[in-house]
C-alpha cells in the first residue's frame, strides 16, 4: 500500500451472483452443493486423454449456453459463453432491469487465465495438421481474450467499460477489485465482475509436468495432498452502489469492503508466503478491518504441497495462533483458474448471507507442517460470518484478496 488518501467512497454491495460450475449452474444449485460438499470432478470428456497418466478434471459437461443467453449470438468461444451465461444468471438473481440503469453507467470486468484456450487449442491442432496455411479465420476471430468481457456487455446490452483482466489464477479477485473501485468512486452504478476459463489439453499437460497435478482427488491442506485438478466454469457477481440497490428495493447478499493486490516479484510459479501475508495486510487495511474481524477465510487452497504450505504460513503470520476457519472450495470444484477466486467470492458471500462455512472435502489427515488450521473438514458447518476474506494467488506472483462483509 502506498501513500495517497482514498476519497470518500460510495458503499458497494453484491446483489446478484451467477455461478456456472461443475457443482451447479445457478446460485441455488451451487449453494446446495457447497453445503453438501459435492465433488464436481469427472473423467475428462472435452479432449482425448489417450496417453495422459491422469484423466480427471472439473468440467461442466452439461453447459448449454443457449439455455441462458438471450441476446448474444454469433460465433463465440467457450470461455466467453461461460462469462456471458454467468453474467445473465447473476443479473437474474439480482432482479436487475438493466434497461433502467442509466446509459453507460454499467459495465463488465472479467478475469481469466487463458482466455479462449479451447480456441487457441483448435488453432494449434490446425497448425499440426496443415501447417500455418492450415489456420482458419473463424478461430482467429474468436481468439482475442477481450471477447470474454465483450460477450458480457453484448449479452446484457451494457455500454460502460468492458475489460478483461488476465492476471492468471487471481484474475477474478482483480476483476472484483477494479469493479468495486468503479462503483465506489462513482465511475459506474453497476458493474458485473467475475471470471471464466475452459479446461484444455495444454494446461492439463503443463500442470502434470510441473508435478502440480493430482490423479483424481484434490485434498487441500491434507498431509497427502498431491496437487490440483484443472477445472472450468464462469462466475459473475453484480456489484452495485448501495444507493442504487436501495432505490430499486434490491435484496442485498453482502457488502464488498475492499481488496488488496501485490506481486511477489520473485518467481514465475513458486508462491512466497511473506508476500501473501503482506497482501492480506493490504486487503485488511484497504477494507478497514482488522485480522481479528475475519470470521472465515475462503482459501486459495489449490491442493499443491507448496501452495497450501505458503498459504498456511501466511495465515499464521497475519492471524497468529487463533486463525479463523479456512476452507478450500477447490476440493469440490478443482482449480477453475481465472474463475477460481470468483467462485471463492460467491462462497464467501454465501457464508455471510446463509450462515454456513463451506467444507474442505476429501480431508483425511492433518499435516503437522500446517499446525492450528481449522479447514472445516468434509462437512459444512453452521456459523455466523460477519466478515469473510477470499484469497487468490497466481503464477507470476499476482496476489489478490477481496474482503466481504454482512450488510450493517
Amino acid at each position, binding site marked *: 500500500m502506498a501513500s495517497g488518501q482514498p476519497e470518500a467512497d460510495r458503499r458497494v454491495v453484491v446483489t446478484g451472483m451467477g455461478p456456472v460450475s461443475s457443482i451447479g449452474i445457478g446460485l441455488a444449485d451451487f449453494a446446495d452443493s457447497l453445503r453438501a460438499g459435492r465433488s464436481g470432478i469427472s473423467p475428462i470428456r472435452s479432449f482425448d486423454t489417450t496417453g495422459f497418466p491422469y484423466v480427471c478434471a472439473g468440467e461442466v459437461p452439461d453447459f448449454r449456453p443457449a439455455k441462458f443467453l438471450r441476446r448474444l449470438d454469433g460465433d463465440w468461444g467457450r470461455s466467453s459463453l461461460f462469462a456471458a451465461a454467468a453474467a445473465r444468471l447473476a443479473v437474474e438473481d439480482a432482479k436487475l432491469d438493466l434497461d433502467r440503469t442509466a446509459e453507460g453507467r454499467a459495465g463488465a470486468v472479467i478475469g481469466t487465465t487463458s482466455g479462449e484456450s479451447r480456441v487457441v487449442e483448435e488453432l494449434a491442432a490446425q497448425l499440426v495438421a496443415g501447417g500455418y*496455411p492450415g489456420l482458419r479465420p473463424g478461430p482467429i476471430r474468436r481468439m482475442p481474450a477481450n471477447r470474454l468481457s465483450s460477450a458480457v456487455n453484448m449479452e446484457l446490452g451494457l455500454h460502460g467499460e468492458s475489460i478483461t483482466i488476465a492476471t492468471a489464477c487471481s484474475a477474478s479477485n482483480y476483476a472484483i477489485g477494479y469493479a468495486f473501485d468503479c462503483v465506489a468512486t462513482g465511475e459506474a452504478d453497476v458493474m458485473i465482475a467475475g471470471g471464466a476459463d475452459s479446461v484444455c489439453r495444454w494446461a492439463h499437460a503443463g500442470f502434470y509436468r510441473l508435478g502440480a497435478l493430482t490423479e483424481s482427488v484434490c485434498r487441500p491442506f491434507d498431509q497427502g495432498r498431491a496437487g490440483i485438478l484443472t477445472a472450468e466454469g464462469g462466475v459473475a457477481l453484480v456489484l452495485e452502489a448501495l444507493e442504487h440497490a436501495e432505490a430499486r428495493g434490491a435484496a442485498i447478499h453482502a457488502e464488498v469492503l475492499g481488496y488488496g493486490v501485490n506481486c511477489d516479484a520473485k518467481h514465475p510459479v513458486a508462491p512466497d508466503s511473506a508476500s501473501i501475508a503482506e497482501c492480506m495486510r493490504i486487503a485488511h487495511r484497504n477494507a478497514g478491518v482488522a485480522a481479528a474481524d475475519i470470521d472465515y477465510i475462503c482459501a486459495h487452497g489449490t491442493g499443491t504441497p507448496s501452495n497450501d504450505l505458503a498459504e498456511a504460513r501466511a495465515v499464521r503470520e497475519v492471524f497468529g495462533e487463533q486463525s479463523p476457519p479456512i476452507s478450500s472450495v477447490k476440493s469440490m470444484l478443482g482449480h477453475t483458474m481465472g474463475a477460481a477466486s470468483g467462485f471463492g467470492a460467491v462462497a464467501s458471500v454465501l457464508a455471510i448471507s446463509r450462515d454456513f462455512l463451506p467444507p474442505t472435502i476429501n480431508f483425511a489427515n492433518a499435516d503437522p507442517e500446517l499446525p492450528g488450521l481449522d479447514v472445516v473438514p468434509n462437512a459444512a458447518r453452521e456459523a455466523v460470518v460477519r466478515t469473510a476474506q477470499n484469497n487468490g494467488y497466481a503464477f507470476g506472483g499476482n496476489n489478490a484478496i477481496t474482503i466481504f462483509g454482512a450488510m450493517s
Partner: protein
Amino acid sequence: MTSLSIAGCGVVSPAGLGADALAAAVGRGEPAVAASPASEDLLPATPVHRYAGFDVKALLGRKGTIFLDRVTALALVAADAAIESGELSVDDSNRDGIGVVLGTTVGSLKSTMDYSADTLTQDRPYLVNPALFPNSVMNCAASQIAIRRGLKGMNATIAGGPVAVVQALRYTANALRRGYADVVIAGAAEEFTPNTAWAAALRHQGRAVGAGEGAAMFVLRRAGDHDRVRMLAISTGFGADDPAAALAGCVLRALDDAGAAPADVTVAASGSPDDTVDTAALAVALPRSDFERVDMTATVGDAQAAIGALQLANLVFAYTTGRMRAGELSLLTACTPEGDVGAVLVGEGDGADPGRG
C-alpha cells in the same frame, strides 16, 4: 478520472529502439519492413513489420533470458528504457508502491500454440517443457517485468486487443487515485511471429496489411509537479451496435474531463489496425477540426495492442521535443471488432506549477 503525469517512456518498435527512431520512421511515412527472418518460408506474402536487429541477450543480459518469449523480451526492454528515462530508482523504500499494468491481446500466441501443439506431437501428450509453461499464461510479461526490476506493487495484465493500452491507462489512473500505487509502469506489447503473421493475414484477407510488433511503456504518476506531458483524460466504453457513436462519445467525454474543446485537438492518432470506425467517430466528435492524422500502421503494421501504445509514445515524443506546443492537444482513439472503444487525450503538463491537477 485522474490525469496521469508521464515521467518516462520506453519504446521498441520495428524501427528500432527509442521514440526518436519510431518518430523518424513515422515522419518519413516509412514502412519499417524488415528483411524476412530465416524462417521466411513460414510467412504469408504480407509485409513483415519486425525489429530485425532485436538482440535480447545484448539488451537484457544472458542471465534469465533463455526461456523468454519474444513479447516478454520486448516488454522488458521497453520497461527498462522507461524506468531509465524516468530516472526511477527502485529500492526497498519504494518497491511496494510501484506497479505494472500491461496491455495485450492473448499474450504470446506462439508460446501458447506451441505448448498446445506439443501435446499432439510429442511421444506422450504430457511431454511438454515445464520451464515454458508460464509463457503460455497471459500475465507472463507483466510478472517478468516485476521480477526483473523487483516491483512488488499491483501487477495487472489487461487483455483488450487494440483498446488494451487505453484500458491499462484507466486501470493505472484508478490505482493511483485510490492510493494502491505511487508509480505505475504501464503500456502494451506484442510480438511478431509466424503465428501472428498468419493471424493478421487471415484478419486482413485481401489487403496488404502485415503483422507487426513493438512495445511502449510509460512511467506514470498522479498528475502533479514538474511534469511536461500528461495523459489529460482517459475514457472507455462499449457499443457493439454502433461503435463509431460509442467512440465519439468517448472522445467527447475525454474532452469534457480535460475541460477542452474539440478545436483544441491538433493531432489525432488511432490504435486500431483498421481505423474506419475511428475516422467515423472523429467526423462526429471533431466536425470542424483540421487536425493532423498519424499513420502508425504503415510503419509498425498490425501490431495489435502495441499500435496504440506506440502511437501514444510518438505523441508524447512530440511534446518532449517541442514539436507540439502548449494548448495543442493530441488524441488517441481505438476500438476492437467487438465494440470496445477508448480514447486518451495527451497534452502539456503544468511544469513547475504543482498546485493543479
